[in-house]
């Protein structure tokens, strides 16, 4: 059985809500039922068949041929199977996913991996703001699973993160790891703004350094920690090579404005 393929007919005029297109919700639907799924976000009541050509049948192996920054909520709540998007995606890709795998060959909009609990999200391009972060009002960001962004990420990546791992190979935007509760964020490039503001616990490995740290982060000196090497190896096995190798880094503790049990590792320079 070949994987289910959604081929984008052209740039959609409106944003699309593609949350119905996960194995859990597609399983058992006939091709014509899939064509009739409502995916529009305006009063035109757009159907899937208006926007995509559909082929294949295996709902556990979904592929989008052609992407757009207007394709929102791809893989929302995914718990199993795989989704691959050849191109860009819009907002909330992989939000609240609990398992399975999503690969985006292009870039993603805001809230990719928002509040995700498990599974793996790989974005080969860049990600927008609030990578892994919570939706408005939610008190929990990412609480499990792994995200890798091969390009750069926007503001407030890993906001309110509780568990899991995020790796950003490029730079990350302003104020990453804000309000972090636990978990690990690894940034290969530069961390802009003031990372870690209001973080209680958790680990930031900022291999390309940080623009600044708040005075409520205290320098604990250079650290040659075995845990860094173990971490580099373990994460490398899961997500591929990581942008730090476990050699000594300078450790800071904070944010003492709140609990102050978080740690930030910066290069010795």
């Amino acid at each position, binding site marked *: 059985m070949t994987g289910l393929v959604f081929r984008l007919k052209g740039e959609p005029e409106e944003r699309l809500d593609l949350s119905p297109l996960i194995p859990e919700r597609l399983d058992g639907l006939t091709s014509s039922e899939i064509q009739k799924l409502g995916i529009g976000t305006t009063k035109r009541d757009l159907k899937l068949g208006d926007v995509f050509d559909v082929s294949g049948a295996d709902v556990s192996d979904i592929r989008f041929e052609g992407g757009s920054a207007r394709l929102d909520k791809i893989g929302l709540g995914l718990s199993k199977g795989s989704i691959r998007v050849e191109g860009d995606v819009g907002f909330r890709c992989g939000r609240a996913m609990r398992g399975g795998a999503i690969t985006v060959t292009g870039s993603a909009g805001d809230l990719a991996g928002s509040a995700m609990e498990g599974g793996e999200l790989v974005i080969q391009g860049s990600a927008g703001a609030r990578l892994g972060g919570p939706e*408005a009002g*939610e*008190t929990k960001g990412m609480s499990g699973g792994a995200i890798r962004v091969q390009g750069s990420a926007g503001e407030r990546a890993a906001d309110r993160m509780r568990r899991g791992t995020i790796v950003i190979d490029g730079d990350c935007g302003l104020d990453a790891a804000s309000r972090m509760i636990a978990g690990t964020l690894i940034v290969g490039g530069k961390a802009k703004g003031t990372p870690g503001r209001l973080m209680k616990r958790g680990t930031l490995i900022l291999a390309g350094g940080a623009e600044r740290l708040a005075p409520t982060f205290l320098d604990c000196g250079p650290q040659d920690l075995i845990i860094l090497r173990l971490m580099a190896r373990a994460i490398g096995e899961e997500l591929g090579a990581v942008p730090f190798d476990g050699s000594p880094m300078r450790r800071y503790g904070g944010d003492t404005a709140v609990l102050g049990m978080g740690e930030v590792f910066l290069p010795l320079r």
Partner: protein
Amino acid sequence: MLTRLKGGHVVDPANGVNGVTDLYMKDGQLVSAPTEPLSADEAIDLSGHVVMAGAIDIHSHIAGGHVNTARLLLPEWHRAFSSRPGETALSRVGWTTEETGLRYAEMGFTTVVEPAMGPQAALHAHLELADIPIIDKATLVVLGNDDLLMSMIRDGESEAAIADYVAWTVASSRALGVKCINAGGSAAFKDNVRAFSLDDQVPDYGVSSRQIVKTLQKAVHDLKIPHPLHVHCNNLGVPGASSDAAEATIAASEGLPLHLAHIQFYGYGTEGKRGFSSEGRRLAALINANPDVTVDIGQVMFGQTVTISSDELRQFAGRAQASPKKSIIFDHEANGGGVVPMDYKATSFFNALQWAIGLELFLLIEDPSRVFFTTDHPNGAPFTTYPDIFALLMDREVRARWIEALPKGVAKWTSLPEITREYTLEEIAVMTRASPARLLGTSDRGHLGAGATADISVYRPSDDKAEMFGKAAYVFKDGRLVVKNGSVVARPYGRALTLKTEADKGMEARLDRYFDEAYGLSAQWFKVRGEALGRETPFREVSCL
């Protein structure tokens, strides 16, 4: 046009009717049967249905600054929000003004009272009420933590002067009655007091909570405001102290009527290894023995909700239990308040016992005309849980099933399993129609006699009471069909019921000066004008006694 509602089983205890009979309505009112029944222009066959007056909810936080703050605080609970997988209990609530009207109407409720309108937020509350479709609304204005009242008591001003001030507040805010919330508690909290009881004094004023309650009770009585002072006692929710507060307040009624709100939250003792036990039986006995007192329950039901209260001291203390962990606390002028999300878990000993205590009180208070049906929406539970509560009251088998599902060890701490009482249809009609109308002084409703407003709810009888009361077969509002088969078919706008009262001219002048000098505010800002609400008929006046 004369409409005949034919052959329904009419349950109208206010008029002593409980049997099959016809009703007639014309121009939005019920009228006497014409000499020639066939002269009706229209007949609706209600045979096989139960017909009651529209239900009245005397205590439900549906509008105003605090309610709206709860909406602002909790965007993640909104059903429509970004199609998130899974729904929370509160996502089924009528959360917006629009849904509030629709969900109430679908259950056959046609009048709902917002019980905690701060004088400074009166226009806000009325703007929201004006946007709630179908139902009629009313408000109770909050006094009892205000500088002026406490100063007047301290300075020994006359009862008449205090009554003038109360009258001004009711008239300005277009309220139907007066509520007093942890009298003096918010003011004391502003002075960093963290525990406050009936005989404690508010710092700086030297006035006790009891004095405030008694003064307001007397003023409301002297002004001939139909609804007695509506009291939210001290120490809500505190094991031991709460039931003491309720007991002391019941005793303090002293021959004048007094209404105690959400009494369930006071039914907590300190026995057992968890230090949390039921005082439901004892409170019910006290209430049974004191005919001056009426109560509403504030039933807790399991699930996510949010507590909204002007009891700033209590809400501040409740911050520690917030779930999710966030809250908003207000230091208003002359008042306070707080919004604290709460998740009542069926698996929690404490929450399960709270649930049981509410039902104990419902079932052990003997006179259905002195106990009112509320969840203190949304504090104990959203009002959308009402159908389940009707079933729990009317069907002991339903109750037994719920009790069975309670966490281990709860049942032995409550007398609920031994209670066999089942509310009859007539008792339900007393509790939710006849008696609330009498309590509020709204004699045009709560019954189906000639001259009553034609607010009528019609139910399809069922052994499943939740189904029966969850979706009314028909609802008429002012004689107009607004709900059919549980769905809204028309959405006219109701009115806010307001007390017909006038402020004393001398007090008017005094308050102009007072608000300017004391607070830098214009007294005119407190006045709600109908024109600001954008409705053709924003108000209907209710007479004093």
